[in-house]
């Protein structure tokens, strides 16, 4: 899901950076100093979890988990994901520097959207309802991220249109896997530690 430096046009880069800064500012305002250890440790857990590779056909895919991040952190997903992307760019060489804003927005905004969309459904006492909203959250966030990535490519030039379409189609299996995994995780969390869902609300 990382776009590399050099592919996007300057207006797209600038828009992404501005939107990300706004999102991070909102997230930081919602983040109390007392919650720092909580969010820091959770964001480390998400970082580790996103390195789990699941087999798919002849290759393997890794999860983005931005749906689950959104369901637990809400707006704080913005700073948490920016930190993760920054670490990945600087220490692991994934992504790039100027495109950081676009990447952060593409991954964190769906997380926030899913947070508002699924918040009610997750409070249900019926386990089936919780699972369904978890699946919707996981698959929906990945779907939105893929759309945003495709859109940032498409806005950067007509030459990228086909690439944008291929990106979306290639990610449909990942959306399905992400939905199942997030659904299962949400069911477990709502049983064992329900306060983990929406802790910064």
């Amino acid at each position, binding site marked *: 899901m990382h776009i590399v430096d050099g592919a996007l046009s300057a207006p797209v880069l600038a828009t992404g950076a501005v939107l990300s800064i706004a999102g991070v500012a909102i997230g930081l305002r919602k983040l109390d100093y007392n919650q720092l250890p909580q969010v820091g440790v*959770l964001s480390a857990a998400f970082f580790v979890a996103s390195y789990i590779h699941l087999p798919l056909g002849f290759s393997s895919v890794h999860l983005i988990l931005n749906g689950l991040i959104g369901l637990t952190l809400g707006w704080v997903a913005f700073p948490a994901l920016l*930190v993760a992307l920054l670490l990945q760019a600087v220490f692991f060489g994934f992504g790039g*520097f100027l495109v950081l804003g676009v990447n952060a927005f593409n991954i964190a905004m769906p997380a926030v959207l899913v947070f508002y969309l699924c918040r009610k459904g997750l409070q249900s006492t019926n386990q089936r309802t919780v699972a369904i909203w978890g699946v919707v959250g996981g698959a929906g966030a990945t779907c939105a991220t893929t759309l945003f990535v495709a859109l940032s490519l498409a806005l950067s030039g007509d030459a990228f249109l086909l690439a944008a379409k291929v990106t979306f189609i290639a990610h449909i299996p990942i959306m399905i896997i992400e939905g199942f995994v997030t659904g*299962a995780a949400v069911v477990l969390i709502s049983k064992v530690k329900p306060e983990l869902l929406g802790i910064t609300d």
Partner: protein
Amino acid sequence: MPQNLEHSGSSWKGQQLKHQTSLIDRFDARVRIVLIALFACVVVLPNSLLVAGIGLLIGLLLVVLARLNMKRIFRRVLAMDMFMIFLIIMLPFTTPIKVPADILFELFGLQASRQGLLHAVLIAVKANAVVLALLAVVGTMSATQFGHSLARIGVSEKLVHLLLFTVRYLDVIGQEYKRMRRAMQARAFVLRVDKHTWRSIGYLIGMLLIRAMERSERIMNAMKCRGYHGQFYLLDHGSLAARDYYLVALSVPFLGMLIGMALIL
């Protein structure tokens, strides 16, 4: 699927990347971060293959200067290139062709354009230049040094604290994850493409988060016990040495020259 493939060439070692001390480490971290940001702008924003090419050479030079492990860097950069490879392969075919003279070659009835190929090369060169420079100059700092310098440059302290916390617990949570995976393996769990695998991994991630949350409660209690009241102190007050000023005095005109080249050529 073999165990060692699961972390696809980019696993971290402990809390920092081990590397030999080099010339680059002698400069102030803030200067390094700011210069790399400027470098990225100069390389990425103009659409000049010459400037991007010079940027790539500088990136390689920096990697040599930083005495990074070539094999590891090569693997990392290759991993990034695999990300964009299909974009680059497709670009020559998807760029609209205006004059027939621009057609480079034909493949299965698809026409590849000269501009598209140039564009693809340009993207690849830019991306590699920035990543190499980033890994060599910023990636060789310890994460703590990186966080503190960000705070000194003016990045929000809350964000920096979040970064420091994340880095601090990456390895701890990573160990926890490995322990849980080993327990699953001991019960003959094998990753497959089915609902059972996905549900189990979902439970694994859920449990990882719950344990992380409970760990953070213990951390918070321990911190409160030591008098934490919502503020960290950044203890290092690094000051710029003469060599940092020389570096700035040398590199800023050089970057300016690159911009000039991009504008004129």
